[in-house]
């Protein structure tokens, strides 16, 4: 992947120039964000048509492009990645979470964990709150002991 450049102009609108072509509005989308969270990144034009896809973006994209893409992905995928569970309480079928994430501390509420807590791998857990917001625990073993303990009793 050479001669690629992506940048915001104006702020908020991502542009892409690739060899002799330029796209004034570009969207990034993971093709299979749950099964392959770091692979298959698609670049799409303003009409939602795929321009190209990279299988291993981190390896294949030039470093500056990947850095820029990460910023855009952080803006587009607003899932919170949970680092720590502060409190976790289940009452009358609702589970109340207070967590520390990569986006700061927050609380949320889940119901029917059977459907809304999905194990994507044996250690990767995705939680969906009552409004459809997603929270991820990418590796439960990386959580501190207390968080793991809270999690093991509830989920």
């Amino acid at each position, binding site marked *: 992947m050479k001669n690629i450049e992506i940048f915001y102009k104006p*702020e908020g609108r991502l542009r892409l120039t690739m060899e002799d072509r330029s796209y004034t509005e570009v969207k990034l989308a993971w093709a299979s964000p749950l099964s392959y969270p770091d692979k298959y990144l698609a670049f799409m034009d303003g009409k939602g048509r795929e321009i190209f896809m990279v299988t291993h973006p981190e390896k294949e994209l030039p470093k500056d492009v990947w850095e820029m893409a990460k910023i855009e992905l952080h*803006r587009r995928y607003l*899932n919170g990645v949970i680092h720590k569970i502060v409190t976790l309480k289940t009452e009358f*079928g*609702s589970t109340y979470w207070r967590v520390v994430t990569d986006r700061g501390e927050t609380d949320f*509420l889940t119901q*029917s964990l*059977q459907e809304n807590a999905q194990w994507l791998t044996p250690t990767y857990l995705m939680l969906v709150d009552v409004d*459809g917001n*997603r929270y991820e625990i990418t590796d439960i073993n990386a959580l501190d002991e207390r968080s793991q303990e809270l999690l093991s009793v509830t989920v």
Partner: protein
Amino acid sequence: MLSADQNSTVREPEGVLAELTADLTEDGRYGERIVRVTRELVTVLDLSGAVLLTFPISDLESAKNDSLVSGGRLILRSKSHEDLIVAYYSLTMAQQFGELARGIEQLAKGDELSINLLVEKIRCEKCGKLLPEKNGVCPSCINRGKTMLRLGAFLKPYKSKAILLAIYATCSTLLVLVPPKLQGTILDSFNAGNRDPQFLFGMIGIWGGVLVGMATLQVLTGRLTTWLGAHLASDLRTKTYRSIEFLTLDYFDKKPVGAIASRVTQDTDRVWFFLVDGLPFLVINGFMLLAVAAVIFSINPLLAVLILAPIPMVALISMKAWKPISNLFFRASQKMARVHMHLNESLMGIRVVKAFAKEDSEFERFRLRSEELRNANVKADQTWHTAFGFMTLSVSLGTVIHWLVGGTMLFRGELKFGEFYMINAYLGMVYGPLQWFASVNNWFSRAMAGAERIFEIMDMKQEPAFAGGDTRKIEGSVSFNDVRFGYDKSNPVINGVSFDVKAGEMIGLVGQSGAGKSTTINLISRFYEPDQGEILIDGIDFRKLDLRTYRNQIGIVLQEPFLFAGTVAENIKYGNPDASLEEVMEAAKAANAHDFILSKSDGYDTIVGERGAKLSGGEKQRISIARAILHDPRILILDEATSSVDVETERKIQEAILNLVKGRTTFAIAHRLSTLRNADRLLVMDRGKVVEQGTHEELMESKGKFYTLVQTQSAVNEIIGIGAG
């Protein structure tokens, strides 16, 4: 022009028309930003009131809620085509911001602000906890009466029986206290030198009477408890089923059938076992504990205090262990529901499983889930037994203390032998049930987890009450007035649809998939209600109509007709159970179904099998049409009724449909546009809007969207072919 002013602080708000709080900051972190709209400006402020950016509405070309994953952002586009990202927010706020975007556009056009920005409560005002449903009730505040009390409310219809049970329980407890007292008296009398056999026989006579009384009470209590428990469980089961029936359709969109079914069967069963076996013993033995404690106190208060001292410790262990054990059992019940779900799914799809030779992989999935269940059960039970071990140890302490302290008192002559013996017997009665309380905990944990899951269903958003509202017989005119609706509120599927349909008109809904056709008929059926705008039936807002009466006047023929297990005749008269066989046959004839039904050996008594498995697709469809004809609805909905059958069958179904639509307002969706040849008018939908309407000829002539659709679908040939034939 756009401007971003970091330093200026906002003046006292004047002329604020709308204000929303975004729950993410500009760098995507959790935090709050205030978006304020006046007639002239959109302003974003942080919580301290500092202005982060402003946008003059006079410079606005468009405003939109840009859907992102787990949230969205409000983007304003200036007349010079520059985009400004105003705010980021989670899905919790996305619908509100979508509405705000619409409002900002209204202001830019110079219109009055006409949006529906509800002030939504997302936290409980009392305890500050997040609410499961916006503007809904807080379960932990409302249901503070605890699950037990709520279960107790189900006792109300059986009050007299419950009181009788309490009397039995009191009597049997008092009787249980008598034998040790008699034994102690005999022993003390012997120690005092009494050798009179008459005294002994007299005492044993009383004892025998007490035993007969206890046995009688045991029988009566047992029979009454079983009766009461079974009735309560049955009430609970039917009420849960009733609640499920009235849940809004979006619940069924999200939940697998198996998981819902297990709440009606397994969870109510758990509650039942507890009510029949656990609760009565809990009550009887609880009462006995108090009575025994009182008797021991009356004999020797000091000894009583010492030997009853471990009770709080036992209670503490029990309480401490309860919550995690309850969670573990809850988890096990969820795993059980998963097993059920998989079983339901793979059995229903067994043909597909076999066709793709996927028996092994389905088996592997089942095995994994079964193992998950096994592990969850093992963990729950093992934790339980560990806690129980500690409990047994603490319970034995009482007896040891009695022999130590009471024994010393006996040796010193401070306690009579009869009293020592009596207390020893009573101790078994106190600590025996205590030990047992802990094992009731096992059932209690399971039952309460089940009850919580049941109440969760009962507390969910229900369809507007069936009873109440206008019960008039409708003519069938239907009007949509600027209707907006989205399954996901921030993403409207129907976006400002307006049309008027006269009673008796046949309307064809046309458009590409995702255009909003099925949603439109879901709205007409009132499976969902519009987020905005109104739907008028005979000029009345359909929310004012009694839901049951309204739905009774709607008939639906679906792409995949659903038949219930039962006979052909029962299925045809599903909507009209009192219909005679003549009427059923009349409807079947009109539906072109009579002949094929007669060719079956049992005719109208033919069992259709679960979900109509014994009939072909075309046969099922014609039975469902007959069902709709007999139901005699004013508004008829045909959703792709002929899409999955061959041409000959389609012809038969077409004829049946012609009979069916006569004199009824009909909305038909069909992939094959030929089906809509007979429609009075076609509504062409695109991206949630009606973009064209008119007769087939008119639309073909105007060469608009419909024309393109016909061309691209190569449906012209079909129309000509069938039209010629």
